[in-house]
Structure formats: C-alpha cells, structure tokens
C-alpha cells in the first residue's frame, strides 16, 4: 500500500481502491445531507445525492447509516513498547478502527516513556501500516517523573502536538508553570491527568460510601479538583492553554465551566465509563471496574452528562487502557487501573447521552481533532468536513443497530471491558482510513 512516514509522523498513502459509500446521510461540522460519497486515491472524490458505481469500485452499503468523519481518540494507551502482552499498536489500532476511530493519540506512559525523540520516532515507525493514525503524545517531564522538562521542542519537531505525563499529574505546581511557559510558541498543548498524589494516596477507588463499606482505600474527588483548580489558576496567570484529561467529578466540571466563561483557553474530555458506570459497580471487588480516575457516584455521572451537553466538555476520549487478564485477577487494591474503551465508546455515547448524533460526532471527531492539532485547520487530515478533496478518513455508523458486548470477541489483546454482556445501541459499520476500507460490516480488514 506504499506507506511512508511523513515529516510529521503521519503515514501517507498513495493510490488506494475506489469506494462508494452508498445510501447514507453525511454528517459533519457543516451539517447533515443525504449523499453518496466517492473515495478514490485516498481522498474524497465526490459527495453527491446519487453516485453510480465506477468499474471496479467497492460499494459500502450505508442505508440508514450516518457517514461521518473518522473518530479521533485523544486518550489511548497502546502499551507498545514495553507492555506488548497487554496491547500492541497493531491490535490497539485494529480495535480503534472497529470503534470508528481513524486516529488515536497514543499516551506516553509506555516503557520506556515517550520522552525523547528516539522513543517518539520508534512509535511512529511501529505505527506505519496500523489500522488508524497514531499521533504520539509526548511526556511533559523526563520519565514522567515530574522532575525535569522533557525535550518538548525536539518532540514538537517530530509532530508531537499534545504533551502529558498521563498516568500521573505533574505534582509540582512550580514545574507545571515552567512547562506551560516553555510550551509557548511551540504550537503544542499540555494535557493534565489531574490527581494530587498527597490526597489520592494509595486510593484504589472513589472515596465515599462504597469505599467505606467495602474497606478499600479511597481517593476523594478533591484529589482531582485541587489540581484542576491549580492548573486553571496557572492558565489564567500565564495566558497559557491547557487540556484536561478524563474529568470525572462535579467539581471539576464546574471549575472548567467557570474557566471557559472567563474566556480561558481550556478544553476538557470525559471518558465513556465515567458517564455510564458508578462506583457501586466495585461492590464485587472485580478489578475490571478499577480505573483512574475512579468510577464516581451517580451525581458525578449526571454532572458529566450535563457538561457534555452544554459544551463544557469538548471531547469524549476513551482512556483505552488494556491490561492482561492475570493482572485483573489480582486483589482489587493491587490490580492496575484501566479498562478497554475503543470499541464501545461511540455506542456508549449513543446509548447513554441524550444528544443528537451530530453533537456526539462533534465530541468524538472534529472537536478532539482540533484539540490535538490533527484537523485540517492545523494541517492534519482528521475530523474535517466530507467534501471533495478531503482526506478519506470516514466512519459509517448505524445509529439504531443494537449489539451485545462480548469482551472475549474484542480486537484488543486484553479482555478488561467493564461492559461484557451489556447491550448497546449504535454500531460502527464501516471505517475508511486514508481511503482504505479497514472495517467492512463490522469486520476488521487488516
């Protein structure tokens, strides 16, 4: 297929097959219209009410379906390098493509951490031929240790647009201030996993009625909120911009809402598990429900839904965090936090959020694409309107189809989906990545 690594790390495809996506409704940021879409040589060639099938073209049936820009996940743990027994770039991006994603932001908490040009280039090279674009996020600090700044300028030159120590927050306010200052002019965004370690301690779930009853060390909502508040104060003081990862509490949503009303350059994401599951799910001590930030009570779930509805939260991001089965068989307090998310995110948004499909797509496609600089405005090929000349990154969604999650059938190398056995509405039917049909009728083609 002639993939090469471009100068920003993206893979560039030459001539691809000719595809006709037939019978669907195109939904993108410019609106909604009934149209067939012709894709040729990796790009959208035509968007018209009726397109005759050119000779040799593959037809992707889209009757009753939504044809949208490919989804973009701001928060994916691909585990490669270092934890290939849990996930690889190949299996993770296959799961992404099945979930409708044509791009994922790969979190830098690999082993080694993505804190050097060498480490970033390695992942970019491993990602050539993957089923979705892998945009590498760089670490803010060396080794994600929170002590010294990582070489952000060198990494930015390789195309890194998002920096985070995700897995942990930058604990030192002083160092975070330096990081925000240093990032000025690099054209990058810093993203924070908000968790004050002194408050979170060895907490393994949300601190509250359930943790008290179950005898599990808890981490209070305030552990997240003090860092959101702190970073908003830094953004205000420095005139910086900042992205908040996986908000999970009412207080965090309120803080971001107020920051936005002040006009501060902040964006935020929420993970599907935080708007679809509560801390009560940990009652059986099954670590598949252990995640960080932890599942919260219903009031926080409701606050996240309100934040997604009113625009406080800009993106739905999966925090896809595979862990090998034996790790999730450990006692609850010892098991690593994290759950699979790529193949269920869109369906959960459709099933759980009372939002029109266009709003859900904004949260899953063009808004996250803009936050991580992958949209056409920033020179990228993700999340843009479906018009002639646009990149061939498209997903076709059947918004009314129902399906039952079977963790063992997911494409991920791991099985830690908290939705095993759950019936969901909305399903990805086809995914086209750079003009290639990587998913046809919910089957991975690579």
């Amino acid at each position, binding site marked *: 297929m002639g993939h090469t690594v471009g100068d920003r790390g993206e893979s560039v495809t030459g001539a691809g097959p000719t595809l006709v996506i037939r019978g669907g409704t195109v939904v993108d940021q410019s609106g909604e219209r009934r149209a067939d879409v012709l894709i040729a040589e990796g790009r959208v060639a035509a968007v018209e009410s009726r397109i005759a099938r050119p000779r040799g073209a593959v037809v992707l049936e889209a009757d009753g379906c939504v044809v949208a820009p490919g989804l973009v996940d701001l928060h994916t743990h691909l585990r490669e390098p270092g934890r290939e027994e849990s996930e690889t770039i190949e299996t993770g991006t296959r799961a992404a493509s099945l979930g409708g994603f044509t791009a994922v932001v790969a979190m830098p908490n690999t082993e080694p951490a993505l804190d050097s040009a060498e480490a970033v280039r390695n992942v970019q090279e491993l990602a050539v031929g993957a089923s979705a674009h892998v945009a590498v996020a760089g670490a803010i600090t060396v080794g994600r240790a929170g002590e010294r700044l990582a070489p952000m300028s060198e990494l930015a030159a390789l195309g890194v647009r998002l920096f985070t120590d995700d897995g942990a927050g930058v604990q030192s306010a002083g160092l975070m201030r330096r990081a925000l200052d240093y990032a000025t002019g690099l054209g990058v965004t810093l993203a924070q996993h908000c968790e004050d370690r002194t408050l979170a301690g060895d907490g393994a779930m949300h601190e509250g*009625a359930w*943790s*008290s009853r179950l005898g599990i060390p808890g981490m*209070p909502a305030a552990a997240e909120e003090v860092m959101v508040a702190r970073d908003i104060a830094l953004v205000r003081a420095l005139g910086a911009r900042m992205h908040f990862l996986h908000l999970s509490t009412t207080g965090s949503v309120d803080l971001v809402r107020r920051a936005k009303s002040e006009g501060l350059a902040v964006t935020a994401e929420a993970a599907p598990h935080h708007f679809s599951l509560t801390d009560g799910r940990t009652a059986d001590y099954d670590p598949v429900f252990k995640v960080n930030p932890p599942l919260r009570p219903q009031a926080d779930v409701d606050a996240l839904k309100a934040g997604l509805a009113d625009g406080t939260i800009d993106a739905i991001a999966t925090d896809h965090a595979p862990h090998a089965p034996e790790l999730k068989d450990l*006692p609850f307090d010892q098991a690593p936090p994290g759950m699979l998310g790529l193949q269920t995110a869109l369906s959960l948004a459709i099933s759980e959020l009372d939002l029109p499909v266009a709003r859900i797509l904004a949260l899953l496609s063009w808004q996250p694409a803009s936050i991580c600089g992958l949209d056409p405005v920033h020179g990228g090929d993700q999340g843009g309107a479906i018009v002639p000349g646009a990149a061939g990154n498209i997903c076709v969604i059947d918004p009314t189809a129902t399906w039952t999650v079977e963790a063992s059938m997911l494409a991920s190398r791991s099985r830690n989906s908290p939705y095993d056995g759950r019936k969901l509405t909305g399903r990805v039917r086809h995914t086209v990545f750079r003009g290639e049909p990587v998913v046809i009728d919910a089957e991975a083609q690579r």
Partner: protein
Amino acid sequence: MSPFPAHLLSMDDLGTEEIVEVLEVADSFVEVGRRANPKVPTLRGRTVATLFFEDSTRTRMSFETAAKRMSADVLSFAPGSSSVKKGESLRDTIETIEAIGIDGVIIRHASSGVPARAAGWLDHCSVINAGDGWHQHPTQALLDLYTVRQAFGGGDSGLARFEGMQVVIVGDIRHSRVARSQITAYTALGAEVTLVAPTTLLPPSLEGWPVTSVTQHLDDVLPKADVVSLLRVQSERGSGEFVPTLREYTADYGLTARRATMLQPGAFILHPGPIVRGVEIASEVAELPAALITDQVSNGVAVRMAVLFLLLGQGTLGGAHRG
C-alpha cells in the same frame, strides 16, 4: 428457617435468624470443648484448608482447632511455603484448592475482597472469610456476640439482653475489618452502636451504616455503655499521619483506669486482641473481671466449629447438634 448461605464472606451474609443459629449451635460445641476428649465426628471425611496470605497464628490456630475437633482433615496453606511467591496468580491458587477436592477454605488476606473474589471462582467449595483487609472479619464478630450473650447469662435470656443494648466501639474504625463486622452483628440483634474515634480514624463516609451516634468524647458515652469494644491501634497510626502521638490517643481514647471507673456496674469490656497494653487499654483494666478478653479467645473455637458445621456439616449429620 432459611438455608444457611454457601459462604461466610461478610456479616451481611447472615440475617438475625442465622446469627442466632450460629450462637445456639456454638452452645453445643462449647459443651464438647469441656469433655475429656473434645472431638466429634461431624466433619469426618471432609477437608478444610486454611489459606492465610496474611499471617495470624491466633486466628489460624483457632480455625484449625475447630476443624480438627470436628474430625475434618485440615490443610494449612501459607503463601510462604507455596507457589504463591513463585508468581502463581491468586486465581490459580484458589482454583487449585478446588481441584484437589477441598470442601471449605478459610481465607485471610491483607486485601479487602479476596474471599469474595475466591467465592466467585469456586463452584463446590465454601469460603469462610477469616479477615480481609479493612473489610470484614465475621467470625470475630460472631464470637464477640457469643461472649456478650454468655456474659449476660447465656441462652435466650442472654440473647434478649441485646435489644436496646448500648455498645460503644472505640478506636481505629477506618482500618478495622472487626468494626465493620461488629456493627452489623450487634445491630442485627437489636443493639445500638456508638462509634468513638478521631475523625481521621473513622471511615470517610458512614452513609448506610446502622450506627446510632459518632463522637470524639469517650467520657460522654462510657457511663451509659453496656459493652465497650476496643479496637487495636497499630503503632504506625500514632506516627503523626492519623494521630499526632499514641500518648495523645491514649489520653483521649484509651480505656484508662480512671475511665474504667465511669462504667456502670455490669458493663463489659471486649477487645479482639492482641491488645496493646497502655495504648487502647490500661493493663489493670484488661485484668478486671468485666474484661472478657480471654473468654473471647476460648469461645472462638466453638463459634468457628458452629460456622464450619453450618456451612459444611449440614446434610451429612445435619440436626445432630440442634437442640
């Protein structure tokens, strides 16, 4: 009578009827313990394993003595001498237990929830929680009830005394599996429970807990108490993170000789042991006739025999020990 549950993971698994059943069956085993040959054939042919990931010689010996007195075959499984240290997963260990045909496994683990997880992985083997993390220690709470009932005259009249009984639980409730089990146990029999602890040693939330009151003033509640149950305070709690010093803890929450004089006549003092003399209880107070600490230990075997009988013995010699 509803069937006894398949596992004893938490005091929540037992209703009032089942708790009373345990106490009544324990009566007959206390009797057995007084015989020259304190052994009955009740569990002959059955195999019980103790699986103590966290060391506790006292509790393990109490369970093993109980099982042996009932003629069960007893396997003692400690992680130090097993493949657990060689990286065998918890699940593999538990499934091995079942594969070798064990009828009941008694689990102690430093992590909350391990007995519950084990029960979910086992099809034919009963699980008894012998203490998991901060979560539950149901047999300790049952033997406390047994000891209090005995101190108040035993039998039905001793049982009737629980109605409206004022129970004061003092100490590190936050980190205590004993307290979590005790609160459910006492209230199931009609007692009212007051918690006394600095807020740092209380659970972050008491939502849904059947406690009557919570206070930081022990002196206010001692004169009305029928039972004072003290919890062990581990020395690291007094290192400044939860409590400034143990000296300060003892001054505010210790059952000192002065405070012991505030108790009404006929009130009793309990402690799950091992006691830290001079911290949560003064040495001379632990020696008072009102202190039931040694009765708790000796009743432990009979109560654990009752639990083993009700979980494993029914259907073989069921009814043999019913009155």
